[in-house]
């Protein structure tokens, strides 16, 4: 579907004919920078702690107990990971379904973020599952359990990960098309890209549908625990709130990650595209805010806001700094054109949605028989940081070797 837009989205094979327009290209950078070294160390530390978990078990490496079965590996690595990968489906919908081709520059970075995000969701899950070697069981029809919310999430995430990889095929193909040193590979890539391009629209729509389904179902997960989840967050419309917040965080995540990449790789950010993208944020975030406030008012749970508990404080932080402040910040057009305010607001939204997931799955989770509160262990924190570091490393590796980022040749 992308190959038709020869002018705005030339693959590498067009470069020899139309070299004028900035197009996705590998960013050639030195591999070993100080930042990369830090990330490598963090990844290594995380790997060691993950190894420790596999040898000695969850009991030895986590602070989980019989009352707190889920910790940060679920709340951050899995649930926040899924939420922050939402940029892939929101930009896919914007660019390819609503045909706002103007935003093509963010298409591939968002896709890469999504593909890597979901890959690491799977890896994070492997570390957390007690019987990780059975992770494939939900695929067996004999074990399908259609009543399970988790089954719905699992199947949708697996399908969506496949869709993301298919959507990524053209990026890999473009890398080799026109490569004189590997003529056979180049021909094969050209063919593959053509076939994939013909059917791509099917995958793009499927990706959006699958995302809507599992982003909302992720919220439905906690609806089954009415006696355990704090009333500030517990609501039957949790699935809707999860979907709306995922849609709201998609573009901020793309902006955040584009600006970070631009600064890290010393590229000029595609500011006009990013600020135009930011114009969608206030309405999307506003809808989420409206539902969130409406839910508090209708259920009358706002009375818990002033009880001075950790939960009420966290709720207020989440709403004020994660939603209201960035919402107000991005209302004026001027702020959206300013990289600094654009970055700060996007970061706040990203952190706000991350905090929301952590709140729903951990902070709000207070089972009646719990004798203590959960706080992650060193192992848990190290593995989570290692996962994030590894993701950033692979992202860097990808954009330096594959045509992902639209930039002018150095």
């Amino acid at each position, binding site marked *: 579907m992308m190959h038709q837009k020869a002018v705005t989205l030339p693959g590498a094979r067009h470069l020899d004919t139309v070299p004028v327009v900035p197009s996705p290209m590998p960013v050639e950078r030195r591999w070993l920078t100080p930042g990369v070294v830090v990330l490598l160390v963090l990844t290594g530390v995380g790997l060691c702690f993950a190894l420790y978990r596999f040898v000695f078990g969850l009991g030895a490496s986590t602070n989980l107990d019989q009352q707190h079965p889920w910790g940060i590996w679920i709340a951050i690595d899995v649930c926040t990971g899924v939420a922050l990968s939402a940029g892939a489906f929101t930009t896919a919908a914007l660019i390819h379904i609503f045909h706002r081709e103007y935003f093509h520059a963010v298409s591939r970075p968002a896709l890469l973020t999504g593909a890597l995000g979901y890959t690491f969701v799977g890896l994070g899950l492997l570390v957390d599952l007690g019987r990780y070697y059975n992770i494939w069981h939900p695929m067996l029809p004999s074990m*399908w359990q259609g009543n399970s919310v988790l089954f719905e999430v699992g199947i949708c995430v697996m399908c969506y990960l496949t869709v993301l990889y298919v959507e990524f095929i053209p990026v890999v193909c473009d890398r080799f098309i026109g490569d004189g040193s590997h003529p056979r590979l180049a021909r094969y890539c050209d063919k593959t890209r053509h076939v994939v391009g013909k059917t791509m629209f099917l995958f793009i729509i499927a990706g959006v549908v699958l995302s809507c389904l599992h982003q909302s179902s992720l919220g439905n997960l906690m609806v089954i625990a009415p006696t355990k989840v704090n009333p500030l967050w517990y609501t039957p419309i949790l699935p809707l709130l999860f979907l709306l917040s995922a849609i709201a965080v998609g573009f901020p995540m793309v902006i955040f990650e584009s600006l970070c990449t631009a600064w890290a790789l010393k590229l000029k950010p595609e500011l006009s595209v990013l600020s135009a993208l930011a114009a969608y944020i206030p309405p999307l975030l506003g809808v989420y805010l409206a539902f969130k406030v409406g839910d508090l008012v209708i259920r009358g749970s706002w009375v818990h806001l002033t009880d001075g508990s950790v939960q009420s404080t966290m709720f207020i932080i989440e709403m004020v700094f994660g939603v209201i402040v960035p919402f107000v910040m991005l209302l004026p057009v001027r702020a959206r054109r300013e990289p600094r305010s654009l970055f700060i607001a996007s970061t706040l939204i990203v952190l706000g949605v991350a905090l929301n997931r952590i709140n729903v799955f951990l902070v709000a989770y207070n089972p009646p028989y719990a004798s203590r509160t959960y706080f992650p262990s060193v192992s848990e924190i190290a593995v989570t940081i290692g996962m994030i570091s590894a993701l950033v490393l692979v992202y860097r590796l990808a954009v330096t070797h594959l045509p992902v980022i639209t930039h002018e040749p150095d």
Partner: protein
Amino acid sequence: MDTNRRDFLKIVGLLGAGKAASALADVPGIPQEKAGPSEEAMGVLVDLPSCIGCRKCEYACKKHAGFPVDSIESYNDKSVFSHHRRPSPDCYTKINAFPKSQDGTQPIYVKDNCFHCVDPACVSACIVGALRKHPQGAVTYDASKCIGCRYCMVACPFEIPTYEYDNALTPEVRKCTFCFDRTSKPGGVPACVEICPREVMTYGKRSELLRLAREKIGANPTKYVNHIYGEHEAGGTSWLYISDVPFEKLDYVKISNTSPARLTESVQHGIFKHFVPPLALYGLLGLIMWMNRTAPQDGGGEPVLANDSPGDPSDTADSALDRDNHKAGGKP
């Protein structure tokens, strides 16, 4: 993007393929509208006031489950009642003591174990169907299916399933099995019920146990609280309790009369109703995609943005060429 009629036929084809995945919409064999307990459903009525806290049931439970167990005399130790103990991976039932009277001299003992819900949230939550509700009443666990996600522990309102966190390779979810190996056979009685010296527990048909409980309360209304815990809680449970102290003072969970699984399942099956909503969304997005499509040969010359775009209102190829010239902002 060359969406045309043929492509729409492809979409229709995909809809058909989607039907195959309609497990989410309706699974054969698992009724979506949960009826009440089946006729043959068994249960246990626990008459809390007659329990003397001898903990023989804990002993019998461990022994029956094949866990290492101390001598039966060691269970006379009353010091364990100093703190609230929960069922654990190596003992599926625990006795806890609560002060009965104001002066606290005479305790009341409470037996904690799986309630074997009529409509269990853990069974609904389980991603692979490792937890199963039997018509006879028991909720059992199949470790060979389990992936170890521990969602059952999140789902259970009574916080019953426990996890073998210290087992690195083959951890299991552990909870009372209702001695399924015994109770699934005629005449079989759970180990704890069998050993109880005071006949605190009565094993029988749930419907008859409810009648018995009402009789007991009716015969001694000044003694018993007029409440059978488990008759309606969480949609009803196989284990039923009567007490002479209000249940909220005995740390019983306060929960509504419908299973928590009803809400999640109605949301889920609503979203997947006959697979129509996802397919409708698919169709709608396809329609939007088709309606917004660009001119067939090279989209370059055609304005592809609608005027309501918040960004560049004239995203032609020219403006795409120009866009890097804008210092900041999407609106030239």
